[in-house]
């Protein structure tokens, strides 16, 4: 059992505290924009913000979210608007299959909060999500565009 806030709404999930936050979000809160890719924090498809920092939710026990603020792709921008990263993704047509993109966008949004004008080196060091379609060239373009937005 854990109480925390998801996208500004308080939730109370009655689950084993060792359940990964990913599955609490997907199967108990019912938000499926956050994806399962590996379950071992290798791919980043499950990236969400925990108190504003990017975490790979497939290895964060739900107990660790107790009392904290979780933000998912659905809550990145309030009220149906697009966050500047999402807008840049749209403008640069980044997604191919799209499955990894929610995690990618969440990782980038956290990066831009820390470093509003990231260098290519910052991007290389921070954005380590796997994309099997291979959208990286557009991802990089869109990050720089979002930073300027």
């Amino acid at each position, binding site marked *: 059992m854990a109480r925390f806030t998801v996208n500004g709404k308080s939730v109370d999930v009655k689950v084993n505290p060792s359940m990964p936050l990913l599955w609490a979000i997907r199967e108990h809160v019912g938000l499926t924009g956050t994806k399962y890719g*590996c379950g071992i924090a290798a*791919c980043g498809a499950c990236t969400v913000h925990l108190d504003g920092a990017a975490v790979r939710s497939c290895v964060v026990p739900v107990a660790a979210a107790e009392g904290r603020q979780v933000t998912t792709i659905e809550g990145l921008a309030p009220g149906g608007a697009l966050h500047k990263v999402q807008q840049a993704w749209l403008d640069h047509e980044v997604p191919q299959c799209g*499955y990894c993109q929610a995690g990618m966008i969440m990782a980038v949004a956290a990066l831009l909060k820390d470093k509003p004008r990231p260098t290519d080196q910052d991007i290389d060091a921070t954005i380590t999500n796997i994309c099997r379609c291979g959208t990286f*060239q557009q991802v990089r373009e869109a990050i720089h565009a979002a930073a300027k937005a």
Partner: protein
Amino acid sequence: MITTPKVSRRAFVIGSAAVGSGLALGLKVPFGPGVVRAQDGTPEINAWVVIRPDDTVVVRVARSEMGQGTITGLAQMVAEELECDWSKVTTEYPTPGQSVKRKRVWGDFSTGGSRGIRMSHEYVRQGGAVARTMLVQAAANAWGVPAGECSAASSVITHKPTGRTVSYGKVAEAAAKLTPPDKVPLKDPKDWKLIGKSMKRLDTLPKVTGAQVYGFDLRLPGMLTATIKDCPVFGGTVKSFDADKVKGMPGVRHVLPVGASAVAVVADTYWEAKTALDALPIVWDEGPHAKVSSATIADVLKEGLGAPQAFVNNKNGDAPAAIAAAAKKVEAVYGYPFQNHATMEPMNATARYTPDRCEVWVPTQNGEAAFAATLAASGLPADKCEVYKINLGGGFGRRGAFHDYVTQAVLLAKQLPGIPVKLLWSREEDMLHGKYHPVMQAKVTGGLDASGNLTGLHLRLSGQSILTAVFPQMLQNGMDFLTFQGLHASGDFAIGYTVPNLLIDHAMRNTHVPPGFWRGVNINQNAIFLECFMDELAHAAGQDPLEFRRKLMASHPKHLAVLNAVADRAGWGKPAPPGVYRGLAQMKAFASYVAACAEISVAGGNKVKVHRIVCATDPGYAVNPAQIERQIAGSFVYGLSALFMEECTVKDGRIEQTNFDTYDSMRIAQMPKVESIIMPSGGFWGGVGEPTICVAAPAVLNAFFAATGRRIRTVPLKHHGLTLV
């Protein structure tokens, strides 16, 4: 949630009988002069184009969108001929069940082999053209004027003499009642306005908001979620399992056998199912292959390199004699491993079964194949089955010919009638039960005369046949012609060199590890075998690798054109930046001509940086250049990940790698700058999603030799101590 294609009360379906009759299948389309009514009473003529009164155009697309942009490209082709307002275009999938009822009006659903556009461009354009003709005729009828006096543009029909106009939505119902013309002339490519333009993809927004529903995300009322373990040794079975040990665990509803080789836990949620499955004691009968390893497989292939018997695919002259008589003989042995697709979204399918109906929701590259798997597993006839396609979280060939996960989901659902069962594979299951890139070795032998001219070439392949395992009916007297992709004498996969004495043959050596179609299929290894060896020959002859190739390519002008294009753009023959070295490769695959020039540097002898790859492709026609650029760059990510990082090794009959920690994939830091030269020469339709993948690896390997003097002949490079940085 998932939308099943349906015609709204106020929508009208327009199209043409010619569309269907143009198909290779030669099936008669059941639509004639009479108006066919959809379930809601809407008059239908045919199935490609739906126009709503608000002028929204819904284009039905049978191929599957898995990121490659095919729904956008196909919609562009319909819209080109339809002359509709692109801003009002949307798409939807017809279902395989509807297709069966309509005698396959939508043609082939299969989305693989880079076929999406190149195999359906004609009939989808006809669909648009016929619909436009009918809309114009309906307007002309309403105005009492000859159709020839009317024109259509941007969803508006204009009567030129009087300037009267009407929008498509207003005449759609009347148009739907008209007899479709047999065949309408298609536009000359020079008049295209949408085809060839980088129209924005139609499916981006839900992918950036998290709203897009993938198979993993599906929710149905009363649904349970299952996860599964199949015997880790291919060919093994379940001996026993102790369900009582896990039945009391939270959320667990059922522990069920699935076929002879698998066990699934069905629970309220995935996490509960997985937790219980991990705790479930299962005893396997590992079957006859439990001792097989990568080393034993390699030995079998090695024997094939010198075996007297082999399938000959491409032969002219007498290569062995020419090589024996050559002034200089060059020989090299190459190897390519098993590789998994590792789609980001693991395999999954959802099924609901009752004795009267079986429905499946599945991300699939081939709705019809999923439908066939549903029929077979459910035992129900076609009129009692349906498959709803969901967009895919990656395909790359894993979700086309193979629907093992559909079979499993239906077998589970049959044991729980009426309950929708969503079967999700863990990443580990996905890694252990792939349909792997075939394992292959090659011995390549070449003879050079005293002037360094290539007089003979023998390329002996030894390894797995995909067709033998998957579509044995397609073998040609036992030969798997797909094994020779990129090496054929002619056709969509024609070799680009003229060699006076040539022999390309295949000693088929199959293994118990199931092979499959993996993005690019057999061009991945064949491009390495051929193009790295061309580089070896050039160096043995003391010639520039570009000039050496050019001499053999005089009769292959389109191959040569793309090679020249990358050489020119990359500045081949001019000094590279300090420490940077170049390598070349070219191929024809899936009817497109492709070439690459890679620029790399090597630090410390083992840290490889790929700075830039210039790539050229001639796909005949380029429908959406921006999406082609993305496919090129994306194919290099897949191809370079495979080159540097990926092998599924076999130990004790099973695959050893279980996740991305041991089966890695390229990250953004390792991404080279990809420069694309799209040079469509017209007159043919080539593929886009796959062809370019094959030239990245040999171009990088040849550049690595240029940088270090070291030849690497087996994949992946991690086994040689090399890392991509």
